[in-house]
């Protein structure tokens, strides 16, 4: 599979020259299968550009939402395939205890926040609840599971016959632990990330910043590295970069964390347009 980020920024879009190297768009990743099947992971501001690069022959696209915080859905209303009557669009994401996925999405895709109603979109739209589930899309075997982040939030493990990806863009597995990492049995997200070829994982904060943000649902760079070590991942792409951190500061902070933790896998900060080719596909 080929994995291409179109948005790697957390919380709020941060465009501009200071963030041009990694990009200022919020969470959105394209995953392309060996047969051309396209998955879109989250619908942050990066999804607009992603849609522009989809093959014109594509007739179905699946959008997998981890959760419905604004930075992960704000681009949804600007996703071109939703306005294409011959396109089949499937949106997967978590419901809450009292509201369906559709009811939750309608809170954004309706006035006054957005002029177009969900029900008026011309595409053939299907919504699917993903709480704790396994499902297949084309060549992809997908597993969703709840992870530690405020509100209903899932992470995804996506596998083909030859490759595997874990996507945990908003994740705070160290929350409440006195030391991290702990036993895999008691680590949120462990099974999703175990032994994957590539892990895209939240690394929003530095260790110094974390105490003021504990419980906000995000990880430090050190904890992302430690989580990757625990899960035995083969490659880590730190993700959900803090909007207040420019390219130079991001590299400096990540380099320092890597030098300290010394992970036994490569670490490549996620950047818009920088693809990862996994397996033979």
């Amino acid at each position, binding site marked *: 599979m080929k994995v291409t980020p179109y948005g790697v920024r957390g919380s709020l879009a941060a465009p501009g020259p200071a963030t041009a190297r990694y990009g200022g768009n919020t969470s959105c990743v394209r995953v392309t299968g060996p047969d051309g099947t396209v998955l879109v992971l989250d619908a942050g501001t990066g999804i607009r550009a992603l849609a522009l690069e989809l093959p014109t022959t594509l007739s179905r696209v699946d959008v997998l939402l981890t959760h419905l915080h604004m930075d992960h859905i704000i681009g949804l209303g600007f996703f071109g395939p939703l306005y294409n009557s011959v396109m089949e669009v499937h949106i997967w994401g*978590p*419901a*809450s*205890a009292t509201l369906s996925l559709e009811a939750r999405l309608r809170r954004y895709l309706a006035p006054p926040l957005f002029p177009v109603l969900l029900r008026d979109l011309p595409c053939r739209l299907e919504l699917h609840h993903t*709480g*704790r589930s396994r499902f297949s899309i084309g060549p992809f075997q997908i597993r969703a*599971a*709840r*992870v*530690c982040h405020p509100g*209903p939030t899932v992470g995804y493990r996506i596998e083909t016959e030859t490759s595997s990806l874990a996507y945990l863009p908003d994740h705070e597995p160290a*929350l*409440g*632990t*006195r030391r991290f990492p702990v036993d*895999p*049995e*008691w*680590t*949120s*997200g*462990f*099974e999703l990330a*175990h*032994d994957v070829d590539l892990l895209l994982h939240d690394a929003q904060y530095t260790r110094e910043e974390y105490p003021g943000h504990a419980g906000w649902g995000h990880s430090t760079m050190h904890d992302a590295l430690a989580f990757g070590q625990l899960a035995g991942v083969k490659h880590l792409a730190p993700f959900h970069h803090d909007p207040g951190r420019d390219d130079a500061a991001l590299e400096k902070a990540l380099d320092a964390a890597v030098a300290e933790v010394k992970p036994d896998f490569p670490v490549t900060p996620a950047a818009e347009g920088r693809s990862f080719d996994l397996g033979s596909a």
Partner: protein
Amino acid sequence: MATKTAQQSVEMILVRQLASYLFVPVLVIDTTGTVLFYNEPAERILGVRFEETGRIDREEVDRLVELSDDPNASSEDLERPLETALQQRRPVHARRWLLRRADRVRLQVELTVFPIIDHEERLLGAMAMFWEHHGA
């Protein structure tokens, strides 16, 4: 993707983490009645340390402590409140005498057990909290 022990759900992970911060003795229990975790205050109630025992199954809990309605009676184990919480999916609150078998110390406690149910109405386990009556 086989692991030695399957990862707990995030809900149970958070319950354990909450328990580890509380002053009240807490047991975190799965749907079979196995105690997955107990916090430091519960170590004092049970008379054993979690670091030494790890998880403990139902039979072992019954060997450690005994609960009864009557200080002079023996033998009502943890079963009733816990089973009610798990089988009927409702909270249970009861006053009991707890006998710590190892040193025969008897404590008067109130016991609150409530089921842990996730967003999809899946029963994940239960949380048992002991409220000790000092000087009872």
